[in-house]
């Protein structure tokens, strides 16, 4: 078990290393560089040389990679080009904002998804299932930029209940941010919840049809006890990985929604820094997003391993 955990963590680091190389090489082979972008039309001669020296672009690429990687490990991603401030200062509030958005969506979405999924499965083909399933399939298929726009149109413009776009400084306090995030959270949670509810539904139905559930019924186990003891623990195990992927997707910045609502999170930062050719920030973002994916998937795998007695003993036996 311990060996397995160490192995998985090592694999995670290798993944991150590969991602870092790909992003570094990627930004390297793109035409133009930070100095040509920054200096624009003055990008020639003495001034360009000076800029190269200042930013350290005059040394070979692999040396730059090594020093960049060493600094990045310590949390220092260098300077943002557009703001001329340390990238970690740019990232800090953005990460916080994205975390607020994601956790709100998670805390609202996951319980609702579980409940809806279980209800639809237990009342399979009956009215509750048909009604909820129709809604979830509908919510799943509408792209988020449409549902977000519709939300703004109805709630913000027609009803004027909530602000339509988020116009706050990047580093506002949580309480001030709260009314602003309701619409984005609803927009994100709709798709996420629908996806997860469908997944939970099919997983519960599969377990309900299993021989051990039939056995539990024939043993005289009362219905709800059977659902909670025999069905749900087995049905929800496979859902853990889906939940993990969803969380990673949320933390990675829900780009479209953030842009539509003008929300100052990681997703919008990705778009901004790409359009500003702010390559150091793009690199930093790529690494951070990759680490989020890797670590959340790792957590999910370990959780499944811990909760599934079958996997646990298999590992110990080996």
């Amino acid at each position: 078990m311990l060996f397995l955990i160490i192995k998985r963590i090592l694999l995670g680091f290798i993944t991150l290393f590969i991602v870092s190389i790909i992003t570094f090489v990627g930004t390297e082979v793109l035409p133009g560089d930070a100095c040509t972008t920054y200096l624009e039309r003055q990008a020639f001669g003495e001034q360009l040389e000076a800029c190269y020296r200042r930013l350290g672009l005059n040394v070979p690429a692999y040396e730059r990679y090594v020093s960049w990687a060493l600094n990045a490990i310590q949390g220092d991603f260098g300077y943002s080009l557009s703001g001329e401030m340390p990238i970690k200062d740019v990232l800090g509030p953005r990460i916080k904002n994205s975390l607020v958005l994601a956790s709100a969506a998670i805390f609202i979405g996951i319980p609702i998804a579980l409940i809806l999924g279980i209800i639809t499965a237990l009342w399979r083909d009956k009215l509750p299932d048909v009604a909820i399933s129709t809604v979830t399939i509908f919510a799943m298929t509408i792209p988020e930029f449409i549902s977000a726009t519709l939300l703004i149109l109805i709630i913000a413009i027609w009803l004027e209940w909530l602000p339509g776009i988020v116009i706050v400084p990047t580093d506002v306090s949580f309480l001030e941010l709260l009314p602003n995030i309701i619409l984005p959270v609803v927009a994100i949670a709709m798709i996420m919840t629908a996806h997860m509810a469908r997944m939970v539904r099919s997983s519960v139905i599969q377990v309900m049809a299993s021989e051990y559930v039939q056995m539990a019924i024939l043993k005289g186990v009362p219905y709800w006890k059977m659902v909670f003891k025999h069905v749900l623990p087995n049905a929800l195990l496979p859902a853990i990985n889906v939940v993990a992927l969803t969380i990673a997707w949320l933390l990675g910045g829900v780009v479209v929604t953030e842009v539509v609502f003008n929300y100052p999170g990681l997703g919008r930062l990705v778009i901004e820094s790409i359009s500003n050719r702010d390559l150091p920030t793009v690199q930093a973002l790529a690494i951070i997003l990759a680490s989020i994916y890797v670590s959340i998937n790792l957590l999910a795998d370990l959780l499944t391993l811990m909760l599934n007695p079958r996997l646990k003993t298999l590992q110990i036996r080996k």
Partner: protein
Amino acid sequence: MMTDIIQKVKNLSIGFRSKKGDEILILKNISTNIKKGETVGIVGESGSGKSTLALAMMGYVKHGLYTIGGECQFNSSNLLKMKSKDLEKIRGRKIAMIPQNAGQALTPNLKIGYQIDEALQLHSDLDEIEREKKISELLNKVRLPSPETIALRYPHELSGGQQQRVAVAMALAGTPDLLLLDEPTTGLDVTTQAHVLELLNFIAKDTGTSMVYVSHDLGAIAQVSDRIIVMYSGEIVLEGPSRDILKKPIHPYTHGLLKSIPKLSLAGLPESMPGSQPQPGTIQGGCSFFDRCNFSDDNCKNNSPKLEFLKDLNTSVRCFNYEQLVNENEVSQTVNKIKNKSLDKEILNLSEVSISYAKQKLLDQIFNRISDENPTVKDINIDIKKGETIALVGESGSGKSTILKSIAGLLRTKDGLIKFDESRNLSSDLKERDPNDLRIIQLIFQNPDESLNPNHTVEEIIAQPLKLYFGLKGEKLKKNIIDLLQKVRLGEFYMSRYPRQLSGGEKQRVAVARAFAAKPDIILCDEVTSALDVSVQAAVLNLLQQLKEDFGTTYIFVSHDLAVVRAISDRVAVLYQGRLCEVGPSNDVYKFPSHPYTEVLLGAVLEPDPDIKPKLVAEDIVEERPPEKGCSFQGRCSRIVGDICKKEIPPWQLTDSGNAIRCHIPIKELQKQQF
């Protein structure tokens, strides 16, 4: 008299609605009574409705099916109309179920102890300490070793036999009046099966519980039941005292069935029954057994017979012409003795073959070698003569299928040589075999549902080897396919069908045709009849034998069923834990003296005859891996002679008839002990 009846099934019909909206019956107007303390065997092939009937006796109807009419009365209340609250009080407490596949029927995330405790909590008033004691008692009763530790395990940590015992313990927890057993021993090894049956018999006597034993296996039914109900396509066709049904069945279906089951005492292939059981909803009036029956006439074609109770025989029968069978003597089996022209020429030679499943270490992967001190299969030396049928037998884990895979080139061997035609070395790695090497050895798998591509028509399936090995095209290809189909007794019109449109027996025929399409020298048969119904099995075995005689093919036949092996093979090799125990002509292997393991296997075979009881010689312990040294069977052997069995690998000894036995006990001594 009425008080004696514990469960009364009255005019029960259960069915489903087809996509076209027609009502299709799975059970047709079933009526029967289960009396207190008796064991009733319900026997039938897959699709006969026997499991549906057993579940209905618990008031349970599977998703998709519904009750069309009739009742299942328990204590004079109809279970099929009962509220689920009331059913919960009966299920597990008054009527309990022992499922077919305990491995699937135990909830994977709950410990064994909890699952039994749950039944106790629901159906007894015991407090926690008493329940704990009771769990140990129950696990003891089903003869599980060290109950305290077993209770803390998860289902997947137990062997199949142990899981089945846990299911029995769980059913006994509520001290039910009626036990329903749905194929409780079907997935188990022969020896485990005999042990579980013996346990069930003991429990029936000990507790006085009534039992309904559902199985397709007449051998198992014969060992437990007082009364037998024979079902065929949703109807009861014969019902009566167990002995009469097995010795002198008066329904043509049962008669034919008993004739088609291979017996240990008879070498040669039994007569086969034509056709297969009709699918539900396809019968158009008349007797459902009409087209397979040897006694049928026009009356049978147009009118369906009623179940008729014959007072003097105490038997109910659904047949117009049963009288023709009443005066017949006991079922006498006629067999076609197999006559193989096995030549002196060796076609395949395995020498010193070892196979390992151990995970390769990094270093070994780099040097492309396998290092394992104690491989799964070791020291296999067999010469296979051209034209013979050699059978590999043993329980699960004996390595019989593993050896087959290596011969087919699907699994790399660790050591040893596989030689074809006395000269040509065959690599056990598929990639190193040329097309001709691949052609000469063909495989027929256990389950045709999985070995035939569901998206290919029969034509495409059989065309593949013809195109691949012989490059046939157009008319010639088609003619060859039709030829092959005729050889396996299937008409030309099968060409356009998909596997799902065929019955189990027909699918296996297509698999046989595909194997023969390559014109192979050797065909590897991996449990080819285990997935088939009994009445179809004999037909497939006869077909295999016929084809072999026509083409002079060599068969390597793997099976766990010793009676089938007896019927079809010239020579038998007995394996335990991947080591050979005994090799010899099948006539001699089935006679004493035998290797102690062969003795155990032969003793455990269940024959469809109430007078032949299994002999349980050894414990049915499951060994995870072969012992490091000494005899492979030392862990379970009842004739162990001392330290020598644990330290030294036993020598091969030859009997007078040319049977080789690997044992430390001298042949003469072994013979004395076994007689």
